[in-house]
């Protein structure tokens, strides 16, 4: 990509340091391969202006895009013991955790904050895919429970953005038990008569899909997101058939009645505000 350097004025290059320049100023769309200027990408909420591909977003970006400006407060999530099984594959789980924490600045694969969305009180939990594939272990389970309890305490809606490969294998059956635990969490919100809305983003799979993610009062998917229980490769190996076009994508799920809406990222916040309003404000002023 040597042609890129011609787009970057030499002065800026020396200012920002050699290595950072091309990556930070220009991004390549993984779908259409076209280059996008970083400011345009920020403005479009990481949606490719050429082909509308929705790129993966961080948990921090989700929170920033969703809350009304300057209304959100992040909450600290409960601590859980690290590496309960002292798990080791080709690398120690403790080491993988350390690296993921360094890379993301997070304790685990979830961020939770409270604030308002279109003026409505809401608690938002966003999964961080960059943290060990957004996998759900005890910390994520605990975080979802904390978010649910906070929503009940504040009489606020609970919105969860999912992005997860599934259960955290390195926590063995403890990670499996986070499925009923998180189901209990969404039960608390539902029993309190508060809206529980799930936004399924790319990718959402395994034990996360098969627990709290599918139990939202309203399920919204981002365009093109891969959403399913079993992974496509496992299915292909099991049934020895070619998977249909668009299999397990948001639009496929919509056509099969699995989700309520497929909403482009740019309209997501407005849709959340609208739906929470319709569910909780019975008479419009």
């Amino acid at each position, binding site marked *: 990509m040597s042609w890129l350097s011609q787009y970057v004025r030499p002065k800026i290059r020396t200012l920002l340091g050699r290595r950072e320049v091309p990556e930070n100023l220009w991004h390549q769309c993984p779908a259409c391969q076209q280059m996008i200027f970083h400011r345009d990408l920020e403005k479009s909420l990481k949606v490719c202006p050429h082909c509308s591909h929705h790129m993966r977003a961080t948990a921090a970006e989700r929170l920033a895009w969703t809350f009304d400006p300057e209304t959100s407060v992040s909450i600290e999530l409960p601590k859980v013991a690290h590496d309960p099984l002292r798990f080791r594959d080709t690398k120690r789980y403790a080491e993988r955790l350390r690296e993921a924490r360094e890379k993301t600045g997070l304790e685990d694969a979830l961020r939770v904050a409270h604030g308002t969305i279109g003026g409505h009180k809401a608690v938002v939990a966003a999964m961080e895919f960059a943290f060990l594939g957004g996998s759900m272990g005890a910390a994520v389970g605990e975080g979802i429970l904390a978010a649910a309890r906070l929503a009940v305490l504040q009489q606020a809606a609970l919105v969860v953005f999912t992005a997860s490969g599934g259960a955290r*294998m390195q*926590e063995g059956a403890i990670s499996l038990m986070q499925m009923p*635990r998180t189901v209990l969490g969404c039960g608390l919100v539902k029993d309190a008569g508060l809206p529980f809305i799930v936004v399924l983003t790319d990718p959402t799979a395994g034990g996360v899909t098969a627990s709290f993610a599918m139990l939202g009062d309203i399920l919204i998917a981002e365009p093109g997101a891969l959403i399913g229980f079993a992974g496509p490769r496992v299915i292909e190996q099991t049934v020895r058939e070619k998977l249909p076009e668009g299999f397990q994508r948001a639009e496929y799920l919509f056509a099969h009645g699995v989700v309520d809406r497929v909403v482009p990222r740019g309209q997501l916040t407005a849709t959340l505000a609208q739906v929470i309003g319709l569910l909780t404000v019975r008479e419009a002023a």
Partner: protein
Amino acid sequence: MREYLDFEKPLAELEGKIEELRHLSDPQGMNIAEEVAKLSEKAERLLHTTYAKLTPWQKTQVARHPERPKALAYIEGLMTDFAPLAGDRAFAEDAAIVGGLGRFRGRSVLVLGTEKGTDTETRIEHNFGMARPEGYRKARRLIELAGRFALPILTFVDTAGAFPGIDAEARGQAEAIARSIEASLAAPVPYIAVIIGEGGSGGAIALAAGDKVLMLEHAVYSVISPEGCASILWRDAASAPAAAEAMKLTAEDLLRLALIDAIITEPLGGAHRDPEAAIAAVGKAIEAELGPLLLLAPAELKARRHERILKMTSEVGA
């Protein structure tokens, strides 16, 4: 002919020899009888030592043993007056999950099980115990039925996991599992789950979010199969024995982690060597757990069930 597992080879040789001797008609019959007795004793000792120190990977193989009693064997052995019930009322009947009403020790109960089948024909009929959404939706329907009629729920779990298929995904496999978990947590009646063989991932927890979870001595219970874990984390399915070790999937491990409530001892050499004794032991264990649960009011029962699940964070095992 008994099917032997790889690690049972020395045992297979010894028991083969005993069989051979038994069929010999020899003028010195007395000596043969003596030899048979001696070898039998040796075989029993070997069986004892082999099964006393099974590795997690060996236990996985025992848990999957083709001759191990399956869910229907427990249902037939422990229930009287069994009335099978079928269908999800929306799309299909899924025989991977069997269920119905019956009497356990005279008491009317609802029973559910993931059934793997016992021969080629029944294995195909039951899809090797791997359920589609219809199976979990049937389970949910029957769990709710049990709630309305105040019938205790007994489940027998033995599955490699939910079926990973195109049709299953198209009809909402994940949602069906989630709803079955939700219904299990909400049931206002005693709910006892027994992991009798393989407790595989979401397909198992869909029928195991109860008041008490019991596990047979050589059963395994995990978030993914050792082969699946190995191929993802080790990038090599042949590392399954190492993955089985690392995942802590044996009954002993899970009891230590407080993720199950009790271990049911199996007959020497595994449940497949004496299915009747294994089934009787399971019946006794269920009876012991059910008694105290029947004394609790529905609200108290559910509160304790939820408390039990909420405690399952990694602090437990730390």
